[in-house]
């Protein structure tokens, strides 16, 4: 890789027309897909500029998704850490139980606009799969969800939910049979069904324009936080924290704050069994730049450039890459990327359940696990906002197993 790009004055002006955030991003796809990627880019730009599209999206976000999601002052959690005020952005209260629906709603409206008649998606935890299946049901489009066979096993309730919603779930057995392999298989489907199929990517990664488009659809989170925080405290927060798998919930809450340099941004990657164990899913903290799934970004890879398997208790974070904008924000120093282990996250999961009566998704629990450091960083009078990206009902079996209990 080249040296990190110089810090620009306008962090929100990226990507460029080539889909680059500094050295990261781009469109590394087979030629067969390239015309489709251009078509999508043009269609997205037209939709973005069309007030009718924005109005339609906004209406569905209000009446179907249930936006705005609350910004909740977590009083007991704040007391527990004894420092900065902690607010939770309640994305887990959205329809289908996570932030994933924000993006799916945007993309399904775009797919309809483009005249596509078949939707494909990849999923890890099943949250994006459920959100995809949901919007496909709502608009009457057939939906095929690729899911690693390992994830099908550990997220059974979500597989059943997708089936109930009428989606076809394809268990992927190739490679490590997790999220990256599901994405490979979805790309193979797309390359084969170029005429009618829309690929609904679930995170702010993949080839341009997906990282930008998914970020834009998820930025509603950060925009609401700005307004809600001004209403609640009359000022912006000192820090924003989010877990990072591919990075969509994190970039969604970060992006509207990129140019407010007083707002510290913390992404939390999954450290699995520990960074030293080698069994983790922390692309920035434990990887190197490379190309996978259409973009240049930090990746877990061996010395020969083969992608290595990610490991995390959380299926939604179990991915060897990260969205390209995060790679760039890391290099230019605008955001800080921490890690949380499986064990840290389990403890944070139970803590939130017991102090606030909220079961967080095990993904979101990774962000919760780093609150002690973040609270300390911003000081006693500080304000921290944490993106509670999803609810934990889907994870109770996993948590029980790790606690050595049977349910």
């Amino acid at each position, binding site marked *: 890789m080249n040296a990190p790009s110089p810090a620009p004055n306008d962090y929100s002006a990226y990507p460029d027309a*080539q889909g680059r955030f500094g050295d990261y991003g*781009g*469109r*590394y*796809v*087979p*030629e*067969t*897909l*390239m*015309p*489709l990627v251009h078509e999508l880019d043009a269609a997205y730009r037209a939709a973005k500029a069309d007030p009718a599209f924005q109005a339609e999206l906004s209406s569905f976000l209000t009446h179907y998704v249930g936006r705005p999601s609350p910004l909740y002052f977590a009083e007991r959690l704040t007391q527990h850490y004894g420092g900065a005020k902690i607010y939770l952005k309640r994305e887990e209260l959205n329809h289908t139980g996570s932030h994933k629906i924000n993006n799916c709603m945007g993309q399904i409206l775009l797919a309809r606009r483009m005249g596509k008649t078949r939707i494909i998606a990849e999923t890890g935890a099943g949250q994006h799969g459920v959100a995809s299946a949901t919007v496909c049901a709502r608009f009457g489009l057939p939906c095929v969800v690729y899911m690693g066979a390992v994830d099908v096993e550990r997220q059974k309730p979500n597989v059943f939910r997708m089936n109930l919603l009428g989606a076809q779930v394809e268990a992927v057995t*190739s*490679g490590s049979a997790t999220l*990256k*392999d599901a994405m*490979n298989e979805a*790309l*193979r489907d797309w*390359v*084969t069904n*170029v005429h009618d199929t829309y690929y609904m990517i679930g995170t702010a990664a993949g080839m341009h324009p997906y990282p930008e488009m998914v970020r834009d659809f998820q930025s509603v989170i950060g925009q609401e936080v700005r307004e809600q925080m001004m209403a609640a405290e009359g000022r912006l927060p000192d820090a924003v924290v989010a877990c990072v798998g591919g990075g969509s919930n994190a970039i969604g809450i970060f992006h509207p704050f990129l140019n407010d340099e007083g707002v510290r941004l913390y992404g939390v990657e999954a450290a699995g069994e520990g960074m030293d164990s080698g069994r983790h899913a922390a692309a920035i903290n434990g990887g*190197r*730049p*490379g*190309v*996978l*799934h*259409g973009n*240049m970004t930090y*990746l877990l*890879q061996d*010395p*020969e*450039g*083969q*992608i*290595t398997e990610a490991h995390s208790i959380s299926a939604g974070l179990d991915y060897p890459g990260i969205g390209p904008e995060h790679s760039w924000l890391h290099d230019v120093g605008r955001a800080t990327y921490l890690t949380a282990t499986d064990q840290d996250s389990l403890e944070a999961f139970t803590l939130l359940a017991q102090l606030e009566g909220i079961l967080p998704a095990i993904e979101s629990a990774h962000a919760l696990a780093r609150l002690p450091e973040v609270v300390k960083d911003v000081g006693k009078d500080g304000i921290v906002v944490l993106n509670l990206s999803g609810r934990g009902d889907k994870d109770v079996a996993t948590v029980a197993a790790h606690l050595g209990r049977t349910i």
Partner: protein
Amino acid sequence: MTKTRIDARFAALKAEGRAAFVAYVMAGDPDYATGLEILKGLPGAGADLIEVGFPFSDPMAEGPPIQRAALRALNKGMTLSKTLQMIAAFRQVDQTTPIVLMGYANPLINRGFETFARDAAAAGADGLIVVDIPPEEADPLADALDAEQLSLLLLSTPTSDDARLKIILKRTSGFAYYVSVAGVTGVKEADAATVAPHVERVRAAGGLPVCVGFGIKTPERAAAVARVADGVVVGSALVDEVAEALAVNESVTARVLSKVNSLAKAVRSARVESLTV
């Protein structure tokens, strides 16, 4: 002057009035020693050009046969360095058969394009196909290969319109590779009648010989495509022979080379037959 190896081969084939048979094998499948033995045997079995796949963990445009071949090779410790080493060993016994490497971007990025180009040229490779580097991302790689007189072969596909073909062929040398089906390798079957007008489009856009690959499995199909194109590439059907041989405990080399032989025969006689029928 490695580029001339590809040019010389196509000039010779043109003089013979027949299409090229291009054999794709995965380097180190099922292991280094057998892979090298197969490689050395390919020209004798009738391969006019050789594509050598270097394995990648996440081959997004590959169907099950080549996915499995890559896994077999990786599980036996195959790497990009060893792939180049294998080509160097091949060059000790064959200085004329062109070799085109084929794979994915990340192992190349990991090594650095300049270093790779130098090492590949030193090993005796002639060209490179990278499935996930479209023309939009190709410049840094193309520059590095140019510096070593190696050919970059950007793929043309059924979704590439004439404007894109121009861009693709501007940075392509050696021969043009037309991917005959929208899909992954080894699944859909190519149809010669459908392919023919596209071959003409690609030939017109670049003036290079056009080889067709991605959906050709049988001698009949290979012969049909050989009548409309300058070369026929077969990959999945060959790596399937590796899998088959392993499953029934037969000699892998013998099985692969015998398949190459039947495909090459079909390609060699295709135009002669078409003249007589």
